[in-house]
């Protein structure tokens, strides 16, 4: 078996996971976690991240002294020795799932008279559509698979709609045209008109985000458009936190596939970081446990995710992935989520557990922290599974009822693990996340329940060991298909290496070719994406940070 563990990266990196409940941060020196902290997420995000960074810097020198110092460390201010900060966040998925912080979007579909009976938002859950759906405009235009226009693009109607958007104060527009991955010209013309007529609105074009499959591509475009304001605000909060902590290193956001993107680029594509939380926790679990094939359970404050590691990588969902009930074609880890976490609300008689959670208010509202709300954490303390807060505040709970609650939680976890399993035999289960104490030490179908060091901050570790990618999306002419793909792969690999990947660790995650019948000479559009571990001593892609 190829050793897929991260290469011997010597860089000092900070990984941060901003979850719904906790903000975790770790400092990695090469392969060593030299400091790890966990703080509550704050409503403004910034102060939570700032506090996590401050805590990390405070605890760091002690941790670092256990390891041989790296060449940069010395006696310098620890903040200046950091070479990169990687943040993973579930903020954007949570916004969609919980229907908050979303911007109303004007949808422009170009393709009439085709596809008329299934307008934008067609298969969205009503409550989400009601929040996001603004003006819906369907226009004549779009292309055939062979590059001919379906009918000429109705630029005059686009201009009229754009003027209306301006009048109505529309701030975000999503544009999707039929067959735009083959010919983006209608979307580009629409963008030009929108820039002229309503320059203050943000515009998301579908061909930048998706592939063939109009509805799924349009859905992703609409989701991206409704998250842009939140993404900008959140990214700036991260940047502010870094600045306040005196860290000058470039800021990256982690993506669905475990790679990173510079924050200022990533803020225009919030949908790309939808699944970064689970991806980071799975990769963090693999890194910390040195396992390549196992199930992983991540028990957070609000939810529990169960996934599978195969050959060191999260098993991906195969086909259609729904986000907040919306159908997409994202590549995401294949996960089972249940509404169970350390912050889950519990009533003992009659017994009920979750799915509602106190979230980041755990340290204010739960019983052991002086509050009045009974949570799974309180039950854990009462049952002696962990020592947290003031255990006297749960001493009054009847032992039999506590035991029953613990058993119920164990049964919920056992069932979830069983559903994720795809093989008959017993498999190891790696436990990570702040709520790990809820996982019983023995489970049916599980050969061993594996705890790992730093398990409570596996997400942040996963962010810190994020990979870099190289991508190519290019038209090749007059080449046999195999040769065109091989050339594309070579270009993508070179780009990944330039971006900081170690060549030996590169693997291909996506290959797609699309014959372009309307261009001469056997034209083929080839997309290849490769990812690899961050290599020794390499700078990530030029840190063109905003001044």
């Amino acid at each position, binding site marked *: 078996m190829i050793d897929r563990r991260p290469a011997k990266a010597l860089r000092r990196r900070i990984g941060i996971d901003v979850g719904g409940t906790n903000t975790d941060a770790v400092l990695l020196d090469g392969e060593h976690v030299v400091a790890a902290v966990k703080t509550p997420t704050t409503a403004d995000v910034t102060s939570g991240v700032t506090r996590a960074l401050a805590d990390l810097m405070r605890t760091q020198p002690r941790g670092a002294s256990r390891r041989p110092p790296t060449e940069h460390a010395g006696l310098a201010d620890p903040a200046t020795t950091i070479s990169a900060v990687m943040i993973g966040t579930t903020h954007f998925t949570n916004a969609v799932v919980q229907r908050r912080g979303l911007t109303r979007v004007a949808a422009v579909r170009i393709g009439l008279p*085709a596809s008329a*009976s299934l307008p934008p938002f067609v298969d969205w859950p009503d409550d989400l559509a009601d929040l996001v759906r603004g003006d819906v405009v369907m226009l004549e235009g779009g292309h055939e698979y*062979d590059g001919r226009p*379906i009918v000429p693009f109705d630029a005059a109607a686009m201009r009229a709609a754009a003027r209306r958007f301006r009048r109505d104060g529309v701030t975000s527009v999503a544009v999707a045209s039929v067959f735009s991955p083959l010919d983006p010209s209608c979307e580009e013309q629409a963008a030009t008109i929108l820039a002229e007529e309503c320059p203050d609105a943000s515009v998301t074009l579908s061909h930048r985000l998706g592939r*063939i499959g109009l509805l799924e591509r349009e859905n992703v475009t609409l989701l991206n458009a409704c998250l842009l304001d939140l993404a900008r605000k959140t990214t700036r909060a991260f940047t502010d936190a870094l600045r306040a902590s005196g860290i000058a290193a470039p800021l990256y956001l982690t993506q669905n596939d475990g790679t990173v993107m510079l924050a200022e680029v990533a803020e225009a594509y919030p949908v790309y970081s939808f699944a970064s939380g689970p991806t980071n926790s799975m990769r963090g679990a693999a890194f910390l446990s040195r396992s390549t094939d196992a199930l992983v359970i991540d028990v957070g404050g609000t939810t529990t995710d169960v996934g599978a590691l195969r050959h060191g990588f999260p098993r991906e969902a195969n*086909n259609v992935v729904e986000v907040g009930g919306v159908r997409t074609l994202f590549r995401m880890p294949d996960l089972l989520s249940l509404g169970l976490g350390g912050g889950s609300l519990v009533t003992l008689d009659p017994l009920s557990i979750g799915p509602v959670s106190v979230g980041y208010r755990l340290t204010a509202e739960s019983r052991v922290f002086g509050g009045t709300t009974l949570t799974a954490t309180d039950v854990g303390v009462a049952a002696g599974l962990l020592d947290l807060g003031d255990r006297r505040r749960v001493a009054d709970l009847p032992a039999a009822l506590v035991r029953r609650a613990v058993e119920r939680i164990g049964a919920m976890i056992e069932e979830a693990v069983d559903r994720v399993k795809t*093989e008959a035999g017993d498999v190891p289960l790696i436990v990570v996340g702040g709520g790990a104490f809820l996982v019983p030490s023995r489970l049916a179908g599980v050969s061993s329940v594996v705890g790992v060091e730093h398990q409570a901050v596996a997400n942040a570790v996963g962010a810190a060991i994020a990979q870099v990618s190289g991508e190519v999306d290019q038209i090749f002419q007059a080449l046999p298909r195999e040769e065109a793909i091989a050339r594309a792969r070579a270009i993508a690999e070179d780009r990944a290496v330039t971006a900081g990947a170690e060549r030996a660790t590169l693997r291909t995650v996506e290959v797609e070719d699309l*014959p372009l019948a309307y261009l001469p000479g056997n034209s083929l559009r080839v997309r290849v994406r490769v990812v690899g571990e961050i290599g020794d001593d390499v700078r990530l892609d030029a840190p063109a940070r905003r001044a």
Partner: protein
Amino acid sequence: MAPPRDVTAAELESLAIGAWILGTGGGGSPYLALLNMRRLYRHGVVVQLMDAMDLADDDLVAIVSNMGAPLVGQERLTDPRTIERAVRMMEDYLGRRFRAVMSLEIGGGNSIQPFMAAAMLGLPVVDGDCMGRAFPEAQMTSFAIHDLPMYPLTLADVRDNAVIVARAESWKWMERLSRTACVAVGSIAGTCKAPRTGKEVKECGILYTTTKAIRLGQAVQAARREHRDPVQAVIDAERGLRLFAGKVQDVARRATEGFLRGTATLEGLDADRGHTFRLAFQNEFAVGWLDETVRVTTPDLICVLDTVSGDAVGTETLRYGQRVTVVALPAAPVLLTPKGLEHVGPRAFGYDLDFTSVFS
């Protein structure tokens, strides 16, 4: 004589799952047709399903299908008004009204096209089709195998384009003429094939495949609900065979001459590790090779299923990295006759191979 019965919205959901499996990769994703039906049902439409045996011999039945390359259907989304226009055009041309609508092929989205037409026209749907699966070409039907007349045919586009093929010398000519029109309008069109009498449907149709597809979908749904293996549920429901489990390693496809053609290569996983499986398709999967040896050919149904969910994977939705299981299901008996094999055996797809069923 049983009266036609209402088809529930839940049965349409099951039909979409089952028909996608019977589509053997083609027939277009039923999802988009299903979305149209959900919208129609939400507006109070209910479509009825009838037993072919309840047709009078001289009743006239519309055989409908959305024709073209499945990839195109992912962008130019199916619209009930297109198929409605094709059927109305046929009624006007014939000067007669249809008694019911029936599917050309039960595989894929074309299992739901007759429901879309029926919803718009207020007619019942006949429980059956003329392929028992999906096939790419006009002459690959039980009606063609029985040498029934192949014309007239009507074809409607979303624009104001419509074509009537008044006569054709043979089924192959009908395929050629209608395919040319289909390619001209963008490789997707609503078609009403040669009308059938009640007698022809009863004698030459492949009956009860609509309810079969619904049952297959229900079996998959039940397995998922009960956390059983949905792929095994498909095999059990249809007495199928598991041929290969692997991961998609390469997909080469090309929309050409109104079809989606290409090959897919799977790399074995688990018990099949170290082996490869190659599939060739023309809209539907036609031949499968295990390590360069022919393992399965049309007309045995070659179904590629999502290993975890049991959902079918279409030739237009196969993607690098997907984990899939290849399953063979038995074909309708009429396709296995010498005459049937002339129409739908491997040679009909250009492969110089004798047909040996994996079930023989």
